[in-house]
């Protein structure tokens, strides 16, 4: 109970800080919101009309009043109206996030499975050729930027081989209701693959290190003395000890996942949350930018919370530690 209370206080304090900080950052921007709203038509808009928009938006009030007005409606669940999409921000985040969620969850599962398998393969035989190969692969992977990889995959598989479509989440020009599940999956696969590759390295290296630690421990030596070896030993003593921390770590990587998704969506023109945050930033759509920032903070917090909870619920040792301190 104490744990949940502590966490919720932390979430609230972080959210307040995030909203204050991002509001300060956004409102100190030299980008003129009125001009961003009107766009290329700004020559046709007279000074008095401008004045009207500015008073309507409350731009003449002080920054603090503006902030309190915004946060008041935020608490009521109203994120405001997006300037580029001309729809409520909450609605846009909801529809866009559904697309992003499909991409991110597929990539998350893929990178978890691949990373864990590679880590186990490498850690089981420390110093072997396979271990060095996987280690080198992971280090090389860590220096590949997500968008570069996306570009290369796009070039090879979509442009040259023509196996996958070049972009978007559904075929161009079709009606949304005519899109089949198969077509959606076809559009999803390449971006998800790109995104998953980025997450593989950290999880594989972590699993490898943990497995090596476990395999050098006293209880494994004892098990070997009893005559256990090979896969049985690995299954009984190795995997059981490393699976939970690996899953936990994977939940804590939601931040990188979200950041990677922004880049991948931009490369593949995938209509997700990341693409709209980039659009919002480039076009000065302040309500949408703030809304997505806060949403991403909640998203990452949930990931970290699940990671903590997994430790807390499954591993009895952490429970004892928490109740003592």
């Amino acid at each position, binding site marked *: 109970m104490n744990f949940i209370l502590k966490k919720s206080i932390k979430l609230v304090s972080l959210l307040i800080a995030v909203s204050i900080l991002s509001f300060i950052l956004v409102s100190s921007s030299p980008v003129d919101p009125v001009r961003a709203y009107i766009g290329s038509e700004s020559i046709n808009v007279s000074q008095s009309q401008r004045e009207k928009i500015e008073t309507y938006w409350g731009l003449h009030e002080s920054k603090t009043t503006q902030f309190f007005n915004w946060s008041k409606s935020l608490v009521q669940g109203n994120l405001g109206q997006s300037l580029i999409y001309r729809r409520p921000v909450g609605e846009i985040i909801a529809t866009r996030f559904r697309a992003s969620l499909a991409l991110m969850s597929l990539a998350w599962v893929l990178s978890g499975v691949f990373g864990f398998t590679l880590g186990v393969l490498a850690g089981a035989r420390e110093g072997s050729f396979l271990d060095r190969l996987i280690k080198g692969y992971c280090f090389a992977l860590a220096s590949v930027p997500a968008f570069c990889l996306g570009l290369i995959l796009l070039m090879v598989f979509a442009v040259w081989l023509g196996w996958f479509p070049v972009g978007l989440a559904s075929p161009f020009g079709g009606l949304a209701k005519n899109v089949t599940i198969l077509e959606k999956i076809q559009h999803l696969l390449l971006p998800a693959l790109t995104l998953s590759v980025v997450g593989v390295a950290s999880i594989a290296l972590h699993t490898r*290190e943990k497995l090596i630690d476990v395999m050098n421990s006293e209880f494994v030596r004892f098990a070997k003395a009893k005559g256990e070896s090979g896969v049985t030993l690995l299954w009984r003593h190795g995997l059981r000890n490393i699976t939970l921390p690996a899953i936990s770590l994977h939940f804590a990587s939601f931040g990188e996942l979200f950041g990677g998704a922004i880049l991948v969506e931009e490369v593949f023109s995938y209509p997700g949350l990341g693409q709209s945050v980039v659009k919002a*930033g480039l076009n000065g759509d302040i309500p949408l930018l703030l809304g997505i920032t806060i949403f991403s903070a909640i998203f990452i917090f949930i990931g970290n919370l699940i990671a903590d909870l997994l430790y807390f619920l499954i591993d009895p040792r952490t429970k004892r530690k928490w109740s003592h301190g």
Partner: protein
Amino acid sequence: MAKHIRLKYKLSQRFEGRNPRKHALIVSIAAIVCLFTLVIVGAFVNVEGLDVNFMAKNNPPSFTHIFGTDWLGRDMLIRTLKGLNLSFWIGVLAATLSVIIAVSFSILSSVNKTLDAVVTWLIDLFMGIPHIITLILISFALGGGLKGVVIGVALTHWPMLTRLLRAEVMQIKSMEYIGVSQNMGKSWWWIGTHHILPHLLPQLIVGFILLFPHAILHEAAITFLGFGLSSEQPAIGIILSEAMRYLSSGMWWLAFFPGFSLLIMVFLFDVLGRNLRKLIDPLNGQKL
């Protein structure tokens, strides 16, 4: 057990006649030499190739233009070298700023419990938003440009290093000689600079080098997304985002070579950092 012994034997065989420290030293020096060449060549390269030349537009790679040319006839090799040079200097600036922030915060957190809580909370705050979104917000606030990128990258990368250094400081603080020093009436500033900072130095140097890959990647990413540097500056991110528009027309060299060069530069920094750690921080370094 027999297998275990054989494995250990194999390991010792692998290192026979090869000193790991010497190996790390050689690799580090090689990486430094490569990076310096890259930077120096990038700084002094002839910029004539950057002029618009429609006679030689959309050329695939050849001997005169090793990386090919773009749709304005600009030489891609020179653009790439200039872009890497810019990336390097942004990396230097951002990494230096990050290290300064990280050191001051980790020393601050050693003063008392309240300050420590504040620092941890700040770390959680900055780790709680995706780096890219923070970068977008900061560059939006500063109206884009080089300044936005450098400040953004510096402000997003200190938390990782601070967390590492803070753990180290906590460990050092529980040492006996710190208690002795306190009992002798030394101020926390004196203890910080004389007893804690020297122990942080190896972590700091390695952390500084390992910040580069992240900084360069984030700089390229944020420019790629269209924030930050303007399009006439030869940044790698700009080159890649422009190349993306020409991908479907089959001009693969526009994206391939710059992307690959960026990868190599990041990889070199990564190798340098890991090998330096083996040399100056052997206890943690040998694990990898």
